[in-house]
């Protein structure tokens, strides 16, 4: 029994080590013997890691140590305080943050909050409705470009452009959503991936409209309007949000709105319909859920949130170009959703902060960022598919499935 387990671990580790070979770099013409030792080192490290994982899992299975995972214990610890205090504390922390941080940190904070919006938007499509969308960043691009073009050609202000951008995003969402309605998971993934590329290529190639790879620049920042009573009488004056703290508070406000909206959606009739579709589409249809419309709505709403984030992004930088919207960006947003826990709002917020801020803090490891994201995605799916902070509903579903198949 033990020998079998050992054999399993060694075999698994062996294959895992093979996957690491591309990372170790065999470059012609020189072959360095040092690399061989590096390979062996990686092998041993993975072996030890696997043993530890196995050990923890087997002890948990045997029931010797029936401990709840750390994240859940932390959650229980937080839950003993009244909810309003925890939330209030977090909001105060977020509000105070720009007062104590330097400009660089504030910039990182803004990026984090943008990704919170994106993650929550993608959560609707992937987490609630169960449709794997790999071209999500296209909607972000639609938001960014619609604001840029409206502002540059017609001088439309941010506030007026925002609803137009949202509507455009929703339309594009429906255009992508409609032909893919009947498709199953993996087809859908590839098609959305292709669609994301199409949007990027169109932005890149349509020189006369989007200035191609050079990008658009010179957009106005979002403005705030306030009444002014100068000598000329009553007028509306504009305060453009140019400083980083101002932009931070602005995206913080947007993020709060998005969080509240997603929370309300999650607990609404529509949210339950999405989850019903994710679990069993045929059963949902038979129970009277209008699946076509509800799925389109998931796309459209997900796109709307991304579009808002995109419009803010373009307004903040006052610049945009097609290369901001590569496939890799979609992957980053997806790994946020996966790491945080599919369908879980606090999980996604924490994951966005962790995945975006951590590489900024450990600057020298920047190159390994995407490598780690990929590894995290696979590891999470194998070890903890419900994510670090699972949505309670989702956790029950997943563990129910475990109990049914005790052999695995």
């Amino acid at each position, binding site marked *: 029994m033990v020998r079998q387990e050992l054999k399993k671990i060694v075999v698994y580790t062996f294959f895992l080590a093979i996957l690491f070979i591309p990372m170790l770099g065999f470059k012609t013409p020189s072959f360095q013997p040092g690399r061989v030792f590096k390979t062996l080192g990686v092998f041993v490290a993975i072996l030890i890691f696997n043993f530890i994982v196995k050990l923890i899992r087997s002890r948990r299975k045997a029931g010797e140590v029936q401990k709840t995972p750390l994240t859940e214990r932390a959650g229980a610890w937080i839950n003993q305080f009244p909810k309003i205090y925890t939330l209030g504390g977090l909001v105060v922390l977020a509000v105070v943050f720009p007062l104590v941080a330097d400009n660089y940190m504030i910039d990182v904070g803004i990026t984090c909050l943008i990704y919170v919006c994106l993650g929550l938007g993608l959560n609707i499509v992937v987490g609630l409705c169960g449709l794997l969308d790999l071209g999500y960043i296209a909607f972000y691009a639609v938001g960014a470009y619609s604001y840029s073009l409206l502002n540059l050609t017609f001088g439309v202000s941010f506030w007026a452009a925002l609803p137009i951008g949202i509507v455009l995003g929703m339309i594009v969402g429906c255009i992508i959503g409609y032909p*893919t309605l009947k498709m199953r998971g993996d087809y859908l993934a590839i098609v959305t991936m292709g669609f994301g590329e199409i949007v990027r290529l169109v932005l890149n190639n349509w020189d006369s409209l989007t200035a191609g790879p050079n990008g658009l620049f010179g957009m106005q920042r979002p403005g705030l309007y306030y009444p002014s009573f100068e000598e000329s009488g009553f007028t509306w004056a504009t305060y453009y949000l140019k400083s980083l703290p101002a932009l931070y508070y602005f995206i913080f406000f947007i993020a709060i709105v998005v969080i509240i909206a997603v929370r309300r959606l999650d607990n609404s009739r529509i949210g339950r319909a999405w989850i019903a579709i994710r679990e069993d589409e045929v059963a949902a249809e038979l129970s009277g859920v209008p699946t076509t419309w509800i799925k389109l709505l998931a796309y459209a709403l997900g796109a709307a949130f991304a579009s808002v984030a995109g419009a803010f992004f373009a307004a903040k930088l006052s610049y945009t170009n097609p290369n901001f919207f590569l496939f890799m960006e979609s992957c980053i947003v997806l790994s946020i959703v996966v790491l945080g826990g599919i369908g879980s709002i606090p999980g996604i917020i924490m994951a966005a902060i962790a995945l975006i801020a951590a590489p900024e803090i450990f600057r020298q490891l920047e190159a390994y960022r995407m490598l780690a994201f990929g590894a995290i995605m696979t590891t999470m799916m*194998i070890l903890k598919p419900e994510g670090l902070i699972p949505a309670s509903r989702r956790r029950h579903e997943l563990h129910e499935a475990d109990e049914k198949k005790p052999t695995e």
Partner: protein
Amino acid sequence: MDLSAFLLQQFVNAIFLGSIYALIALGYTMVYGIIELINFAHGELFTAGAFIGVIVLTALQQMGWVETHFVLTMIIVFGLAMAYVAVLGVALEHVAYKPLRKSSRLAALLSALGMSIFLSNGMMLSQGVSDRAYPQVFGLNSIEIMGARITNGQIFIILLAVALMIGLQLFVHRTRLGKAMRATAQNKTMARILGINIDLTIRITFMIGPALGAAAGVMVGLFYGAVRFDMGFIFMIKAFAAAILGGIGSIPGAMLGGLIIGGIEVFWAAFLPSAWKDVTTFTVLILVLYLKPSGLLGEGTTEVRV
């Protein structure tokens, strides 16, 4: 050059590109046929093959083998690239697919996608961000047929691709393992009851599919003269379009789909603005999925599955 020669030239190019797409598409189709999942990391395996090719070929060129033992060099280059990627494919299956065989589809898809990101960034870190130049081994010799020029490299690559495809057909239809593969694709439970080793069959599939992709990677490198860590992405979507167009799960379908996608791309680039050729291919993919998801030669069952 008159129009008919021009058309013939484009036709040759289309067959050339199409056979490369077909080889990659075969990998998708075979894996899909067996486990009903798309191998997201297939594009990365293809790129890994191309990199092994450039490493081995450069080494052999420095030893002067390209001039003296040309055929042997090619056998070593293709053999090593295919063998390495076959091992990589098995490793991928064992690490990312096997533990998730009973989980939800979404979990398996995300796991494969994670591996794809991991591998492509691993190659970026180890092989660099810029293009790696492939040694030019074919020279510029070409033959002319009715005004169309075909380079030696093109002829070699087309012949090799056809040989590999014929070999695959023979393997799938004439050997015991091939029969086991077809049985597993049709009904996994029944195959298991009849004593077929499912694990082994899946493993073999994950060897053959990626190995064909690796051969395609070396071909792309040899012909275009450069490889890059992220070139797998665009080839992946196109080969996937080819697999879908031909009917996923169907091996002749993948070949046909590859040729059609290659044809669309080449003729679009010849007559219409070539910047939009990728958009066209992706649009074809979406249209096919919308209008006829079972593909041209797909089995009827796919319709139910989709």
